[in-house]
């Protein structure tokens, strides 16, 4: 794909992934509630706006310059911008995209990939150029146990891997403890230390926070907190419970839109327990040579994204404004960059997702058949080897899909190819096992008849054995197809597109319409496939096998 200057980007706008899936990334949580958010902060500042306008000519000049450089840009590889599944970094990725395009550089969006391991591996595997990250995630999770403290040390560590990091963008998304403003005032609680005086308080944490070392266990130890009544619950449920007063304290992220929505305060971390999660952009250092203009474009964000702006943007996402549009508004206000957002109609989008999904399923299933059918024949002919083959296929089947997708990234990067490979691997077992079983179940008298006729082994296989086993083989392929259609929805985790996109986005945004936009067509495709195979059975399974003997 070649892009010149401004590119419609909305076709990438809705990529979605539910990032968590037990992979333990702190920054991925869906923290959205279906509710209106407050209008952008009063901080969305007018004076800085004026300041921006002063600089506004500069980007304009850059746009003009980029047109001069069009031939180079046309041949340039697009800058591949990624994000995790969560809304906040997805919006940031869209902001980066608008700025990079504005600098005249083509862009390829890989937003809403799975959790931290997905994006990090993708960056390391040279499948991404840049993505928004938090310093705390880098020090506490990615480089866990190395005791890296401070920006310079972190930058040095990244540099060893050929990666760079911008200066902080201007906001931090830290863990904090939150209470309703009224309740905190009533008890006179301002800091976490103050909680020591109120042992009876009811606390509800997300299940992940309950387990993390930098979560409740560490926090309780550091502050010697006395509370015993601590429940684990879903993060969104915790917010709901907090607003209704059934719990008093929960953990939150300092940029959550709900802080304003429910009139919460964050308690001061007076002993400095929580790591700092400052937002930065992590990128491949070679990008500075390949696309220097793009690097300087996204470095414009350094120090320019305030916590209030982020809370406001998160709030708009709660109202289901597409991230690309939120990002466009941000760059317009902050940098006077005119970014265009082209909306994709539902019908077009559905068509595109269907084609993507069919490609994933079709190619993967086709490859599964081509490989598993011969292996099934081998398995039937040589039971010893067959046991090993079916054992291996069964082992693959037990690898959780998420883990398999993560394994794919270092080998095959992100996108359609690794997703197809993973689906192909999952599709093997039912076809192989059913082919082997179908062949083994052929009555010995049939095998003898074929041999007594003097058919060659190949002719016996093609003209007798496979037709006799056809029903079992077809059932295996049908099982594989239906499984593949379902599993393919996870392909969105590594940027493979398909019906998984709206499902993952919808899960992140708590947007039921969006979830159904992917889930319903996926279910229909599975049912239709099932029906098609019933029809295929009438064509492919010889009629003589479908009759009941008369005598």
């Amino acid at each position, binding site marked *: 794909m070649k892009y010149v200057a401004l590119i419609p980007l909305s076709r990438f706008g809705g990529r979605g992934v539910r990032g968590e899936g037990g992979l333990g990334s702190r920054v991925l949580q869906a923290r959205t509630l279906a509710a209106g958010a407050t209008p952008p902060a009063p901080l969305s500042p007018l004076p800085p706006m004026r300041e921006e306008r002063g600089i506004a000519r500069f980007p304009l000049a850059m746009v003009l310059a980029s047109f001069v450089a069009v031939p180079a840009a046309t041949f340039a590889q697009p800058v591949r911008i990624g994000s995790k599944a969560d809304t906040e970094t997805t919006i940031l990725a869209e902001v980066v995209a608008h700025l990079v395009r504005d600098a005249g550089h083509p862009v390829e969006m890989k937003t809403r990939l799975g959790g931290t391991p997905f994006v990090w591996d993708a960056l390391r595997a040279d499948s991404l150029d840049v993505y928004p990250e938090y310093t705390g995630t880098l020090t506490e999770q990615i480089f866990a146990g190395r005791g890296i403290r401070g920006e310079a040390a972190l930058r040095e560590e990244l540099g060893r891997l050929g990666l760079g990091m911008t200066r902080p963008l201007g906001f931090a998304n830290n863990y904090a403890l939150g209470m309703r403003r009224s309740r905190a005032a009533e008890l006179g609680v301002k800091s976490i230390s103050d909680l020591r005086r109120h042992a009876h308080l009811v606390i509800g944490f997300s299940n992940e926070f309950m387990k993390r070392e930098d979560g409740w266990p560490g926090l309780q130890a550091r502050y010697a907190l006395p509370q015993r009544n601590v429940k684990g619950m879903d993060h969104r449920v915790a917010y709901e419970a907090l607003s209704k007063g059934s719990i008093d304290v929960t953990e939150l992220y300092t940029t959550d839109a709900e802080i304003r929505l429910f009139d919460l305060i964050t308690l001061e971390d007076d002993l400095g327990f929580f790591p700092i999660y400052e937002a930065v952009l992590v990128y491949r250092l070679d990008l500075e040579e390949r696309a220097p203009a793009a690097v300087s474009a996204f470095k414009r964000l350094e120090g320019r994204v305030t916590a209030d702006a982020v809370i406001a943007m998160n709030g708009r996402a709660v109202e289901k404004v597409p991230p690309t549009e939120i990002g466009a508004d941000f760059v317009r206000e902050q940098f006077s960059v005119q970014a265009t957002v082209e909306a994709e109609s539902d019908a077009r989008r559905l068509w595109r997702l269907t084609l993507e999904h069919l490609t994933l399923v079709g190619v993967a299933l086709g490859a599964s058949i081509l490989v598993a059918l011969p292996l099934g024949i081998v398995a039937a002919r040589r039971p010893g080897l067959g046991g090993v083959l079916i054992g291996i296929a069964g082992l693959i089947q037990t690898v959780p899909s998420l883990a398999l997708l993560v394994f794919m990234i270092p080998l095959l990067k992100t996108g359609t190819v690794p997703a197809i490979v993973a689906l192909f691997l999952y599709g093997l077992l039912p076809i192989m096992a059913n082919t082997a079983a179908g062949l083994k179940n052929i009555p010995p008298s049939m095998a003898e008849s074929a041999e007594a006729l*003097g*058919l060659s082994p190949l*002719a016996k296989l093609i003209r007798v054995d496979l037709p006799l086993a056809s029903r079992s083989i077809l059932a295996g392929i049908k099982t594989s197809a239906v499984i593949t259609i379902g599993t393919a929805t996870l392909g969105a985790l590594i940027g493979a597109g398909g019906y998984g996109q709206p499902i993952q986005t919808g899960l992140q945004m708590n947007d039921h319409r969006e979830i159904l936009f992917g889930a319903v067509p996926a279910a229909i495709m599975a049912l239709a496939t099932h029906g098609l195979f019933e029809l295929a059975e009438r064509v492919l399974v*010889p009629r003589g096998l479908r009759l009941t*003997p008369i005598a």
Partner: protein
Amino acid sequence: MIEVREVSKWFGPNRVLDRVTVSVPEGRTTVLLGPSGGGKSTLLRVMNGLIRPDSGDVRFGGQPLTANNARRLRHQMGYVVQDGGLFPHLTAAGNITLLARHLGEGPNRVRTGLVALCELARLPAELLDRYPAELSSGQRQRVGLMRALMLDPAVLLLDEPLGALDPITRSQLQGDLRDIFRGLKKTVILVTHDLAEAAYFADEVVLLAGGRVEQSGSMRDLIQRPASRFVTEFVRAQREPLDALREAAA
């Protein structure tokens, strides 16, 4: 036509054939007779190479039957089993012509052969498009016979071809089979446990029991000059019901 010399065969700990020597004359019908488990079906399968003997050798038309040439030689040995052994996924015609088509026979020759076989086996031609499940057991047996005869083999091997049929169908097919054997002057080897059936078909009889040849020769010799006590017993056991029938009729 087929010479079996000193053939032994073990299935696990059981010796099913014990140094069996049999000579099958060309152009005649040889019946392998005996009780179940006597080794007659195994011997039949040794003759067409479906079972490799542990010791001894088999010659077909003077040529030793080996693992390498067995498949090719089987094209000259039509084989019919109980209930026809038809492939359920193929029509009657598909079953009959499978091997011929595989060997590259032209469609015209295949069709001519089919028509001739229908007449020979007395199978109405309209049944050719039916699947085995749509045929009666007698019809399936006729189709099985046609399949075995399709390549006009020198030898026809039949394993209890009438075993699964009701008495009326059985007697019809029995008559038709004998006409065919005599008409085609093929070398026929037929396995049965039934003395009357053996008497009906046999030019030569080989009586097998416990994996050994108890007696071989003509049917008359078998009845009038039994070679062992076992032969006497075997014949008597099967004659008594027939004698009772005759008495009742008289």
